[in-house]
């Protein structure tokens, strides 16, 4: 087990280098740079050249990358081109807000999707199952930002029930609706597979009450993939957060990132990309480990 964890942790390093390398080069490919902040056309071009040199932006890209990498290893992600504050400080100020949004949303998603998925599986082919299948598909087809706009229109502007910014209710609702479908279907598929297993047939043959079969035997095993689900949903949860935070002006890391992208705030873009990717990678690692612990089949296989 520990060997497995260590092996995976070591694999993290080339992964991170790959991620940072790609991001850095993409950022620097372009014909523009942070002096894009200076939108006043009255500023003389020589001033921009001088400032670029001061920021070290005139050195070859590969040199800039290694300078960045050296600092990043010390967790020094430089200073934001906009506020002059250390990148790591600004991100840590905003990260908790994003995590709150994501965790509440994910918890609600699980709360709804597990029962619905299980019920759909148990009553496969029934009206219940079919209706919820269609609903799932519809939810998956709704663009997140459009849902956000429509909700804002109805609940903030027309009905005045909720403020359009600073409040969690709408962002969470949008995030939950967007993420619900995928997990519900996954849960359903997992439950269907488990219900088709031999030992379930055996349990039924033994005469056990149906409810016991479902909840005691099948459910436990069908829940195992939920752990993997957490890992797999992370990229989407983060992605959703970026857009939703921007629309609802929620002061999280996502909005910080989108603003950084628009203003070519390289240090901030690098910091957020690296940290988000790191969280996704670690999330997947934890999911894999959790899966290995929880699923006896894998655990025993590893022992060999």
């Amino acid at each position, binding site marked *: 087990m520990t060997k497995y964890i260590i092996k995976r942790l070591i694999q993290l390093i080339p992964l991170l280098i790959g991620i940072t390398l790609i991001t850095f080069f993409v950022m620097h490919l372009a014909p523009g740079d942070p002096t894009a902040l200076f939108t006043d056309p009255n500023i003389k071009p020589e001033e921009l050249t001088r400032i670029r040199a001061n920021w070290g932006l005139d050195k070859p890209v590969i040199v800039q990358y290694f300078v960045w990498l050296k600092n990043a290893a010390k967790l020094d992600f430089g200073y934001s081109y906009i506020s002059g504050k250390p990148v790591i400080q600004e991100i840590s100020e905003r990260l908790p807000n994003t995590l709150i949004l994501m965790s509440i949303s994910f918890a609600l998603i699980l709360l709804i999707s597990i029962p619905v998925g299980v019920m759909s599986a148990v009553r496969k*082919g029934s009206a219940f199952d079919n209706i919820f299948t269609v609903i799932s598909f519809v939810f998956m087809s709704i663009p997140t*930002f*459009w849902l956000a706009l429509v909700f804002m229109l109805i609940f903030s502007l027309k009905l005045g029930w909720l403020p359009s910014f600073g409040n969690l209710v709408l962002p969470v609702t949008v995030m939950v609706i967007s993420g619900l479908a995928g997990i519900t279907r996954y849960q359903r598929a997992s439950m269907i597979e488990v219900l088709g297993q031999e030992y379930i047939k055996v349990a039924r043959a033994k005469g056990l009450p149906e409810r016991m079969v479902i909840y005691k035997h099948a459910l436990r095993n069908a829940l195992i993939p939920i752990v993997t689900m957490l890992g797999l949903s992370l990229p989407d949860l983060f992605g959703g957060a970026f857009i939703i935070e921007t629309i609802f002006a929620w002061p999280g890391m996502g909005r910080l990132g989108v603003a950084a992208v628009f203003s070519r705030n390289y240090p901030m873009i690098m910091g957020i990309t690296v940290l988000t990717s790191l969280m996704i990678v670690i999330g997947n690692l934890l999911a894999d480990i959790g899966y290995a612990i929880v699923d006896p089949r894998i655990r025993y296989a590893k022992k060999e």
Partner: protein
Amino acid sequence: MLRKNKLFIFGLIILISFSLLAVFAHMIAPYDPSEIMENEIQGPSVSHWFGTDDLGRDILSRIIYGGRVSLSVAVVAVAVALTLGILIGSIAGYFGGLFDEIIMRFTDIMLSFPTIFLILAIQSVLSPNIYNVMIVIGATSWMGIARLVRGEFLSLKEREFVEAARAIGCSDLRIIFRHILPNSWPPVIVAGTLGMAGAILTESALSFLGLGVQPPMPSWGNMLMDSQAYLIDAPWMAVIPGLFIVLAVLSLYFVGEGLRQSLNPKEKQ
């Protein structure tokens, strides 16, 4: 099965209608989508079925032309993704070994990115337009297809017909393209359909943020961007393009799901 069939048919009908609208836009649209008329911000009426926008342009015509944009982006983006995915996946799956290792590492790296953020970052440094949107979406969504194709290749390359082909002296390239690939079409087609659905959603999100298709060329996404300032005054500007996005994506999902079930021999109903 019957139920699913109904959904599949529904999706297919919508898709075909949208495609026809896209191809024959210039004949079907009542007005020129850029034409500025004297009556801006009008609700749906007899002369303008979907109303007019803030510059007095006919929304129905813009929706039709916008559909052309959204569908073409979806098709090209998926074509790019499929090309990349098939190429990368088949090399990894067929040759295995170090190739496989390196390629899979690279795929893992790409999968670890918060994709939408990466796309945003890329688009912000380019001057966004319909063409680089197609390429960027394609270049960031090939991973799933690559994995799929690799999986197919890993299982198929040990089969007898491959052995036989090798025995006759077929080159690797020939084996890949003439023998193995044709047998792995089914999951790839399904993946392609789902990819198109995703591409439409991504393009509209990008255009909504101003980093996708640029006005005045209409796209369902950038029409939504323009609608934000008029949310209260002209809610139809926001509601209608969104509904079309939902319809297009939904029909792609229904068609994809239907294909998956019919092409997959293991699925019993």
